[in-house]
């Protein structure tokens, strides 16, 4: 029987399939907590969690905060700009100061890939990665995996297509590692400028045609397209992106009828995903949000629980 031994959760690249399943199993029990009238357990009572966001975020931070509250942890929220950190105190000094206040866990988001790995190696307290640049967003991928397992029962042989700006997406990378480890077939699709061929070397299928990408998919995970990519010349316009890579009602005709539609949010309605598809029968987008809370409770509980 596997037991959790990590003080940090930095990414899915480092986790074994067994560890991922262990988190999902743990999350299943935490999901029930939020369904009770008393939506709170004393698991992290007396522990302090700092939510340190060096990049703006609303959804992920709220989800983590709620997860921490439901575990009875004490919470401090800190926000900083990477640019001001550059000029003044270094990131390492900042987190060392946080740790000196006898904090138990740091939940951190940062715009630089690997910033959390850099910090975790140098801190005794636990570090949970809430997104580091385009590198990893492990709790988002875990909640996606949790939702897929809940809906479809497992991963072996499943076809999952991730569509959008794969190049700049931490969600895509964490999903790729998790899905591959659990035995799913992964396709990444989008404009060739945002889905370079190098992704094939990670073990996924690369595809530049929406119809081809969704045809055999059991799950279609749509990523948010950032408007600023248009200005950097990755594609000509949002309108052109939407017409070639957005999912519309008509796209569902080319898909398996029971295929799941997922999106990490926030959705650009009618850009990557037509409103009626986001709200339609295949969509599990709001369930992803619910499951995110359970997954984050499980992760916080596990990393806090194994500290020496």
């Amino acid at each position, binding site marked *: 029987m596997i037991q959790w031994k990590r003080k940090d959760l930095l990414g899915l690249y480092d986790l074994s399939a067994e560890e991922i399943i262990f988190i999902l*199993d743990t999350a299943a029990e935490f999901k029930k907590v939020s369904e*009770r009238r*008393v939506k709170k*357990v004393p*698991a992290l009572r007396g522990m302090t969690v700092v939510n340190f966001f060096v990049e703006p975020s609303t959804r992920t931070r709220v989800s983590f905060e709620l997860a921490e509250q439901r575990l009875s942890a004490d919470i401090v929220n800190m926000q900083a700009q990477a640019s001001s950190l550059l000029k003044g105190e270094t990131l390492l000094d900042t987190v060392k100061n946080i740790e000196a206040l006898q904090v138990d866990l740091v939940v951190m988001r940062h715009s630089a890939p690997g910033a959390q790995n850099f910090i975790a190696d140098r801190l005794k307290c636990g570090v949970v990665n809430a997104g580091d640049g385009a590198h990893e967003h492990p709790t988002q991928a875990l909640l996606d995996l949790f939702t897929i397992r809940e809906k479809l029962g497992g991963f072996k042989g499943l076809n999952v297509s991730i569509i959008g700006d794969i190049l700049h997406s931490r969600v895509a990378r964490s999903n790729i590692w998790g899905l591959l480890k659990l035995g799913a077939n992964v396709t990444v699709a989008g404009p060739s400028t945002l889905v370079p061929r190098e992704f094939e070397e990670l073990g996924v299928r690369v595809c530049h045609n929406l119809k081809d990408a969704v045809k055999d998919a059991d799950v279609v995970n749509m990523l948010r397209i950032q408007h600023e990519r248009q200005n950097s010349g990755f594609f000509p316009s949002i309108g052109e992106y939407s017409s070639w890579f957005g999912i519309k009602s008509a796209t569902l005709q080319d898909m398996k009828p029971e295929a799941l539609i997922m999106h990490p949010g926030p959705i650009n309605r009618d850009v990557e995903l037509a409103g009626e598809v986001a709200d339609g029968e295949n969509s599990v987008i709001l369930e992803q949000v619910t499951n995110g809370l359970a997954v984050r409770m499980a992760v916080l509980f*596990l990393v*806090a*629980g194994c500290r020496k």
Partner: protein
Amino acid sequence: MNSYAQLYDAEQTKQGVRLLAEQIGRHFSVSGNGFALVGIHQMGVPLAQMLCEELSACGKTPDFGQLDITMYRDDIGTRNMLPRIHETIIPFDVNDREIILVDDVLSSGRTIRAALDALTDYGRPGLIRLAVLVDRGEPEFPIRADFTAFKVSLPPERKVVVKFEADEISPAGIFDVNWHKNN
């Protein structure tokens, strides 16, 4: 279990379960809402199941639930590893119910403390009682068993292990095991 002594054999253990069921049956009726047994993971769950079967044979079929107390432990962050969280299933409304918590061994009382917190987060039971197969008699908390089959007095570094099924290490029964507190 490299160093252990058998305290009770398989047959005596079975008799203990029957004894426990009789005690419960004398005190609780199935009138009104009836009472419910809630086993605490791990060994409290099969024990509660066996008690349910015994009581059913006497025509008193209680509701049955299972409770995992890992989220309610008071030693999170101090252990090397956390135990795996098992499924909590409370398939009935606990409000105003008479509930008997069931565990295999009453030792420090900390598990029962956690179980009381866990159970009351599901609602407001009318009454809670505690049934254990083995009572070690020296709890660290002011918690006593209401129903018990065996009383055992052992030094704290020994652990009492209950097995309802034989395995490759030992037969079924109740054992006194040399225990290292760090696992």
